[in-house]
């Protein structure tokens, strides 16, 4: 009962935070065409491999206080358990390029098949919770957050948590960055098992995703 009560309180707080967000001016940051980067690193019994992309779309929408209050204390959505600014990002799978000297396009095509890119052309992430981690420096940057969200790939969606760092840039832009180790089998992407003339290749089921996501502000009056 106590747990239910606590959950109800959390839900109520989240609803109130969302209502507060809707009721006031919001600051919307849109993904920028330059300055974003995503890398996916994996291992195998032969050697490590890497996939790289530079296209990350999406937005980050937060109370306008985010832009003026560097301490972030007045930004309700970042200080309310179970709440988060509205944010979603996506990465076109065709923009991810294998980092090999020869045959990149063919390797990329295998990756696209494995991720069922024809039906699921993007990796999509939707933020559901975001809370400040540690103290916010006087300069307002960098700030660490604990986040939770839904990560959709290959036709499956799973919840992931991730520590994210936000940097305020001199020109008013913000950059989020983070690193996350993922078990791809959770998205039904099994470790590769190609049968080659020279033997089998075994790859680790875990991959490390690193990203830097640059966004620029655009005011939206609700």
């Amino acid at each position, binding site marked *: 009962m106590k747990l239910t009560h606590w959950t109800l309180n959390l839900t109520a707080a989240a609803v109130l935070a969302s209502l507060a967000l809707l009721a006031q001016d919001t600051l919307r940051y849109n993904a920028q065409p330059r300055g974003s980067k995503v890398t996916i690193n994996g291992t195998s019994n032969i050697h490590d491999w890497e996939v790289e992309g*530079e296209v990350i*779309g999406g937005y980050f929408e937060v109370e306008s206080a985010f832009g003026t209050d560097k301490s972030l204390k007045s930004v309700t959505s970042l200080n309310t358990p179970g709440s988060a600014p509205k944010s979603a990002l996506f990465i076109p799978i065709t923009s991810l390029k294998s980092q090999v000297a020869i045959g990149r396009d063919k390797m990329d095509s295998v990756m696209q098949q494995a991720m069922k890119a024809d039906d699921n052309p993007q990796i999509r992430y939707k933020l559901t919770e975001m809370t400040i981690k540690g103290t916010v420096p006087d300069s307002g940057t960098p700030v660490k957050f604990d986040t939770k969200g839904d990560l959709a790939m290959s036709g499956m969606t799973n919840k992931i948590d991730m520590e994210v760092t936000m940097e305020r840039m001199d020109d008013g832009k913000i950059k989020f960055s983070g690193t996350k180790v993922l078990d791809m089998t959770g998205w039904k992407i099994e470790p590769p098992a*190609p049968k080659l003339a020279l033997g089998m290749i075994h790859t680790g089921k875990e991959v490390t995703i690193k990203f830097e996501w640059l966004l620029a502000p655009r005011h939206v009056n609700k």
Partner: protein
Amino acid sequence: MKQSHLSEVNRREFLAGGSFATLMMLMGGVPLNAADEKATNAEGVTSYKAKSVPVKVGVIGCGVWARDILKTLSLLPHGPVVAICDTYPAFLKRAGNLAPNAKHYGDYNELLADKNVEAVIVATPSHLHKDLVLAAFKAGKHVYCEAPMGTTMDDARAIAAAAKNNFKLNFQAGLQSRSDKQIINLEKFIRSGAPGKLIKGRQQFQKKQSWRLASPNPDREKEINWRLDKDISLGLIGEIGIHQIDVANWFLANLPLSVSGFGSLLQWKDGRTVPDNVTVRIEYPGGIFLNYEATIDNSFESEMGVFYGTDAAIMMRDRRAWMFKEVDAPLLGWEVYGKKEAFYKDSGIVLGAGATAQTAQEKKPAAPGATAAPASDVADEVSALQYALDSFLVNSHLVAAGVKDFIDTYGEGDDQALKDYLKDQEKNYLPAVGWKEGFESVVTAIKAHEAVMKGEKIVFDKAWFNVA
């Protein structure tokens, strides 16, 4: 000898495996080919097919060279030919045998209006390229334009400018050497400094042939033998020499300063107005000269090139290459193990692009301090044209996918950002000659031909290489 044997074994293993993944492993890559239950068989082996994304091709101009292009495209599953065009029905019919699924067009405008065509290969007589290429860009097609891009400075510049400005479409000049694994390997070898300081180059094309094509009637004869007419043809320099001159521009990493030319008509006095015997001397910065000779009056030593450095000379012939070291040249290390072949009084160390680092290691450990791996002495079975067309197809897809990814993500409107993104993505493309290098080489060839026809020296104006 053992080296050669092992290379063949590996080649057979690769072919027998029939798997691109084998190649990937050999080249040092591991495919990110994850599997779900359906894609994995009972042995746990994934069933994904490593394949390039198809780009549907239209070929404009169906002459002799175009038929070679069609034959080569038939080897590339990602280059389905969906349309062909020629004004001469007999050529169209013959080309159709090589592209059985292609629609036939007698008017290139109709082919360009065909929505099914994503990319075109322009293989018409060179003096007709400009209008076709400009129309192709206007129709939103990727363009592979055979060399020379144009036969006049104005035409070539118009094509280069259109390619530059239509940055959402892929353009490739038909200069195959820069896509050829063998030549790319040599370029890296030269850049490694192994030949020492480059001092000069010598290239030639010698083949006894009339260069005249058979035709059924006088009108057709004139049309089909456009290469023999000085008013519309760049002759031996522009139609053949441009490929070797392009390699010189690339290897010497400079634009030419001047060109002197000489030409004569000695053997084929059949009414043609272009020489059958030409020599040009092209001057590059630093006192480096390239001597180029082409004749269709004699076949001795055929097609070959030599680049001379202070430590070694590099000879290219029959898609193979050798290094001839000076006695006082520093020891590179690996050449001790290299296969050697005798050439008159000299011994050439075989250079090649057939071996990967891994196969080289299987043969023998790399020598400490080696600047390049020992190479296979087996000539590459993939033709330079196939490399070039593969590059065109793959790069056309990458450009189109890049444009789509970008616009789907960020919307339209910021062309400069898109241009920057595509420029950055070039690192992912297969090697190919774009509008810039293609234009520089055709300018060199146009002026070299002009020097031949005038029998004089022409000093290059840097502005000639500018594209609006």
